[in-house]
């Protein structure tokens, strides 16, 4: 009996294995990165990729060149991830020019690329209507006749529910250099119960990163892309509010000394521990019981933290400090289209940032595990950063994390401006007043580089 598209997608996602692409990225490092190339010149899929993939997957069994496609998919872990941040930047630029529709269009692609990067980390390449995946023996297979968006949407739902895959997120995000997995395991140390298998799936669902992002927002994207922009009427752009929210998003992306995002990862940890507590005890994470829970975790971590760090983390994790939920997380719970059919680009943006955070963490870990270091890809990221205007001549002499100090100046300027202009709605007036700052606020590619290159 012929399988349905959904069945084929689920089979591919379930059986895909990252082994082959891990070998591929090491091969790329030895043979091509050192020559300043992302792929070999003889790689069949270097140009006219879709054409060759279609041709090679037409027969049954497929006759794909597995080494070349493995190399392609391996490289695409990084490229899809960075492109996702670039699409996000384009979306923010559009928004700052008062164009909600284009923003949503771009940011949808940021989300899509984030998921494509996540899939590539798992040995899955998304190619128009043919999608290649490698099994654990390193043999390629194909999901045919399924469009990109459908594959990504259905595939991601499946991926989120496969504990062995989605739980990797918790392995690769760290706070104080301790993985979220280890933080959560410290909660159940000695108890024998393992809530960890529930955290990620519920986490992704509660953020709305599955159907909400790719289902409803997919329709939303179509609304933005194909329908005349003024029908239905959209409210006036509130520039001050947008600038304020973007600044708040940036404050979560400050690079940490551990290769992640200092504030964002802390909030992810808090979120995960809240969830774990609810799963274990069936009550809200408040009061003495939750305090004891956090104390126990801090006492059971695999590495002892300095007392001061423990104390400050205790206060944070029990919401004695930073009580209010950040704008990024608040917006991520909103729909991209509200009840009045008004577009909410900040909601879509926030989810894109969170998805990209996951993709970035997985990609950084993928590179690190396979010995690909920042210097190996310098030929690529230096050029990308230059093209994006992140540095004047070269980024090679700069510690990328030091570039945060430029953002700090911008955020400080923006804060001053906002205090004097709390309700400025005119796009042109704002662009006149703080043009340089707006330009910097859109440069989310920088966050991508911080996160990918440790």
């Amino acid at each position, binding site marked *: 009996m012929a399988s349905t598209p959904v069945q084929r997608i689920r089979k591919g996602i379930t059986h895909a294995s990252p082994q082959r692409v*891990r*070998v591929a990225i*090491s091969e790329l490092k*030895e043979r091509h990165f050192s020559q300043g190339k992302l792929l070999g010149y003889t790689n069949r899929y270097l140009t006219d990729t879709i054409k060759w993939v279609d041709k090679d997957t037409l027969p049954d069994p497929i006759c794909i060149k597995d080494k070349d496609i493995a190399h392609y998919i391996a490289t695409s872990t990084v490229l899809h991830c960075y492109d996702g941040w670039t699409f996000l930047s384009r979306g923010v630029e559009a928004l700052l020019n008062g164009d909600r529709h284009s923003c949503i269009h771009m940011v949808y692609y940021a989300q899509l690329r984030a998921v494509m990067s996540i899939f590539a980390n798992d040995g899955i390449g998304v190619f128009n209507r043919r999608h290649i995946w490698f099994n654990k023996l390193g043999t390629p297979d194909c999901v045919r006749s399924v469009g990109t968006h459908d594959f990504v949407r259905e595939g991601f739902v499946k991926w989120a529910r496969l504990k062995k895959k989605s739980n990797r997120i918790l392995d690769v995000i760290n706070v104080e*250099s301790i993985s979220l997995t280890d933080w959560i395991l410290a909660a159940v140390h000695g108890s024998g119960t393992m809530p960890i298998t529930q955290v990620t799936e519920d986490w992704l669902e509660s953020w709305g990163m599955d159907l909400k992002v790719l289902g409803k927002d997919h329709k939303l994207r179509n609304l933005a892309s194909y329908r005349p922009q003024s029908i239905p009427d959209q409210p006036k752009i509130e520039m001050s509010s947008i600038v304020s929210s973007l600044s708040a998003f940036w404050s979560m992306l*400050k690079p*940490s*000394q*551990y290769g992640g995002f*200092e*504030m964002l990862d802390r909030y992810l940890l808090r979120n995960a521990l809240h969830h774990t507590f609810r799963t274990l005890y069936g009550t809200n994470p408040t009061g003495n019981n939750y305090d004891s829970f956090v104390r126990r975790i801090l006492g059971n971590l695999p*590495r*002892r933290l*300095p*007392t*001061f*760090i423990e104390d*400050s983390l205790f206060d944070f994790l029990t919401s004695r*400090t930073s009580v209010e939920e950040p704008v990024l997380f608040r917006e991520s719970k909103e729909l991209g289209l509200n009840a009045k059919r008004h577009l909410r680009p900040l909601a879509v943006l926030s989810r894109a940032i969170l998805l990209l955070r996951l993709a970035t963490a997985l990609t950084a870990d993928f590179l*690190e*595990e*396979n*010995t690909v270091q920042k210097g190996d890809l310098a030929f690529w990221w230096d050029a990308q950063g230059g093209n994006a205007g992140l540095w004047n001549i070269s980024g090679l*002499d*700069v*510690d990328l*994390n*030091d*570039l*945060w*100090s*430029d953002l700090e*100046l911008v955020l400080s300027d923006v804060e001053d401006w906002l205090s004097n202009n709390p309700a400025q709605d005119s796009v042109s007036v704002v662009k006149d007043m703080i043009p340089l700052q707006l330009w910097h606020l859109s440069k989310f590619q920088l966050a991508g580089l911080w996160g990918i290159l440790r």
Partner: protein
Amino acid sequence: MSVKDLELPGIVVKQWLKEWNSVNFSQDELRKKPEPQFYLFSIPAKWLRKWSDIYRRQAVGKRSADKAAQRQHIPGRSQEIKRFIRGGFPWSDLSDTQKRSSEFKDLRMPGWLSTAIIANILAPGTERVNEQLAKKDSIELKVLSDGTAKLLIPEEITKGSWDPRVKPLEIIDGQHRLLAFEQNGDFDESYELPVVVFYDLDITWQAYLFYTINIKPKRINASLAYDLYPILRTQDWLEASPTGAYIYRETRAQELTEILWSYPKSPWFQRINMLGEPGGGTVTQASFIRSLAATFIKKWEGGKIGGLFGASLDSNSTDVLLWSRSQQAAFLIFIWQSISNSVGTVDAEWAEVLKKHRRKPGSRLDGGAKPSDFAFTNSFSLLASDQGVRGILQVINDLCFLAYDELELFDWVFFSDLEEGEIEESNLDRIIASIRTVAASDFIIRVANELANFEWRNSSTPEMDPELSKRQMIYRGSGGYKQIRKGLLELLASSSDEQISRISEEVIEKLGY
């Protein structure tokens, strides 16, 4: 060992204090009085595996009748140990891809298992899992008059077909190490394990022993290892490990930052923004850590300049400064105290202007009573910025790194117990005072006096000359880090102090400025 020998020599370890006679011993409660000694043997791993068993708690039967003390086996842990035996650390932690890579081929190290396995020899007739140990399957322990002992192995138990329900040895601690040696595995027969053997030790004492070995001990502060063996700071094999180098560099940077923040006589006392919160100070903990990791604690990167606390001081040798964490902290505090003293007394326009703009008394980062405090808390002061902090640390590290010999850094020796937790303030006081005995201290004071002449106002300082403000803008943002380092070195190179000038020029040349 040849199975025909059937005897294994060992030694007797007498351990019994007369106070122990008052311990509650009770045969009925499975805590009968143990022998006043135990024994040390060296036993091939393969044979130890064959002659012993690790009794897992059985789900059948009443729990109270279940005498087995051991816990579940974690197969992954034994596999990890097996990999360690084969290739040591960090080889055992590498992924398959990394192991195949030529980059890591030199990282194979010996996989010593030098910690003793703890085992108990069962007396014949002892009951386990509802069966008794048969005499023919027992190992006899013979104590000799010369203080040695012998294990007499019956030929029966060396046969391949021997596999009784109850074996003569049980493992109290070390099961995972032992299970790394599969019964029919391919490890060399000459791989022996040190084994501490008790004879007929009751179950309660076995559990007690297990607890005191595995549960009671505190977790170790891993960075302490780098003070016990400073040579670890420059080992390639640790650099290659994902966690090894981090443990020293990042953890040590964090510890030193915390000390700078918490030591009352430090100019940074409670002035580093440890929580990264708004209004909590202009220099955050994260940026201080990054600055330390980029300066004093960085590794040698060939050709340029390494970190005083993190690199060999000579590319041709493995000379590492044997300074402990306390000494490192003391050195940094001394540097900042010198800076603080010099900016507090310097007769310079920048200082006069910043004093006028000091924070109000009673505010969270109050200027305080010291003359120099204005420079460390003033939001218009570059000294209270990431760029300024990095610049000072870079320049002094660079100078000291190149001139370590003439500054007699190796001669600064301070003997004290290594403090694992918080360092006592009085201890730091003594260590800082002791710096005065070496040439480096006078040098640092003179450097600090020179650095006080730098223009430390940032471009936002009120009433600043527009031209000066424009010039100072190069110290803003990411470009500011390099510019400040360059500016400070150029200032020092133009000093009338010959030593400072000479060494600074050497640094400039090394850096290619």
